[in-house]
């Protein structure tokens, strides 16, 4: 293999190698499988080849963005963390990943992006502090709208808003999911014995941000912290596979804060966004011109249509 694949992902903080769930699970899987990736930790999604994070640029210059696709690609390169799993264990992995996607992901989106206090004090402030200047003004808001839309589609409720009832429902499902994961893990080191697999990467990716970020509204976090085996599971992976990040966290107390549930695909809108700003400026100018234009059109028409109005005497003389 000549050049290694390049992985673009969000920067880390709070002792995590990346703040985004999807980036984190890809990083974890790559570590577990021992894939030699050239990792670019960035805080400007527009610098990613796909415009979104994570993104994997393969040495054939393909770009993959979905974590599942990236993992399949790595597997094809013989970096397979699931090599030792039996067929039944493979089936269990699939089932528990589905469980997390159905029950945990909506609650994570809610916690990080929809719950107002968490979003404003943690998520938005982290992203706007880490993004370069003009992006920091609007990209966090865009990402938030995108995540809210996603939650609405997942729940099939187009008018969904943050609220106690919704929070209760989502957290109930998420807590149940956390409990089920904890029961499945039991006292093992990893889900399937002593070596980590893709399921471990998924669980780590989803739970570590929830565990490590400083959430002002920490109901779900409290619950996770009370589940000992999962807490240890996350810290062990951090220590074993991301020792540098884990150490950084213990050395410095990072000032601000943040975390991402999953930053999805807001940046395919990159071009569109640029186009939109240009269009907006153009539109503003045009509408101003149009508004004043109406006035002038009116005057002109008056003048054109009403010559007799200006010389009525002459008209009368004719008659």
């Amino acid at each position, binding site marked *: 293999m000549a050049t290694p694949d390049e992985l673009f992902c969000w920067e880390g903080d709070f002792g995590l190698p990346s703040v985004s769930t999807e980036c984190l699970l890809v990083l974890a899987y790559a570590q577990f499988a021992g894939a030699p990736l050239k990792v670019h930790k960035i805080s400007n999604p527009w610098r990613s080849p796909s415009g979104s994070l994570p993104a994997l640029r393969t040495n054939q210059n393909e770009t993959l963005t979905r974590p599942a696709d990236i993992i399949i690609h790595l597997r094809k390169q013989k970096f397979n963390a699931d090599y030792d799993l039996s067929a039944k264990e493979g*089936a269990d992995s*699939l089932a*528990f990943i589905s469980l997390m*996607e159905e029950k945990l992901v909506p609650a994570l989106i809610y916690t990080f992006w929809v719950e107002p206090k968490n979003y404003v004090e943690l998520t938005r402030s982290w992203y706007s502090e880490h993004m370069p200047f003009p992006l920091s003004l609007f990209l966090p808001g865009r990402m938030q709208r995108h995540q809210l839309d996603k939650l609405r*589609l*997942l729940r099939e409720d187009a008018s969904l808003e943050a609220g106690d009832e919704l929070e209760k429902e989502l957290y109930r499902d998420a807590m149940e999911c956390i409990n089920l994961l904890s029961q*499945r893990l039991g006292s093992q080191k990893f889900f399937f014995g002593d070596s980590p697999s893709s399921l471990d990467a998924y669980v780590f990716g989803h739970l570590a941000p929830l565990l490590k970020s400083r959430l002002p509204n920490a109901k779900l976090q409290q619950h996770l912290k009370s589940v000992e085996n999962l807490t240890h599971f996350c810290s062990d992976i951090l220590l074993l596979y991301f020792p540098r990040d884990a150490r950084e966290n213990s050395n410095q107390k990072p000032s601000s804060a943040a975390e991402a549930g999953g930053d999805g695909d807001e940046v395919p809108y990159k071009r569109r966004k640029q186009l939109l700003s240009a269009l907006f400026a153009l539109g503003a100018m045009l509408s101003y011109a149009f508004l004043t234009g109406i006035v002038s059109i009116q005057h002109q028409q008056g003048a054109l249509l009403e010559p007799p109005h200006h010389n009525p005497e002459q008209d009368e003389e004719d008659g």
Partner: protein
Amino acid sequence: MNVCVFIPTAAEPWPENATLYQPLKEDQILLSDCASSLAVQAYLRMCGLPVQVVCRANAEYMSPSGKIPFIHVGNQVVSELGPIVQFTKAKGHSLSDGLDDVQRAEMKAYMELVNNMLLTAELFIQWCDDATAAEISRPRYSSPYSWPLNNILAYQKQWEVRRKMNAIGWGGKTLEQVYEDVSQCCQALSQRLGTQPYFFSKQPTELDALVFGHLFTIITTRLTSGELAERIKGFSNLLSFCRRIEQTYFEDKTKNTKLSKFV
């Protein structure tokens, strides 16, 4: 009533007039709704709870969650299998009491596997495959309505489902990839089932009802292409599993149920 598998210890009386609502069976209901409805019916039969199935064109809008099916018991209305399982449990009817913690975790996980992959694949094939959408889904979905409302509602539904597919990352998938996902899911289910009669040995649970509902509906429903059913027919233990549940819970009741006509 047929075999009562689980005899609840502190069963509250289950009203005789409990009703399950679903869209019109012959002209309207789509594969995914039919599968979900059959899963709930199978679950209630496994619990030995009688329910009368009522078809209404506006079932989707009557449902509190907008999802099919829902049951009306006493003065309560509950939709979807998950909440219905909780509801019957609160009334003292449960199929999964005998499981240990790990088994219960696995059961829930496999149920979500079915929802996450099979149900999503059904929705994808219904609404994102242009041929199926044009020939089956849109005409059937909108059959109770008159022009032009039928077109409006059908396209509105299609648009919603496609947005959802984009949101969960299925937007860019091809039909072949979706069939591959279905195979993968069935492979997992087949592995989990192995040679047992039910997923957790001798007694059925809600997972069995859910898997039966989806697999049986897929096998017995004619779509534009038989590919989806073919993928399932590759797994012989799943096929005999479906047949077993059908024979145990559906066949002896009446000869004219919708299921027996496919046998």
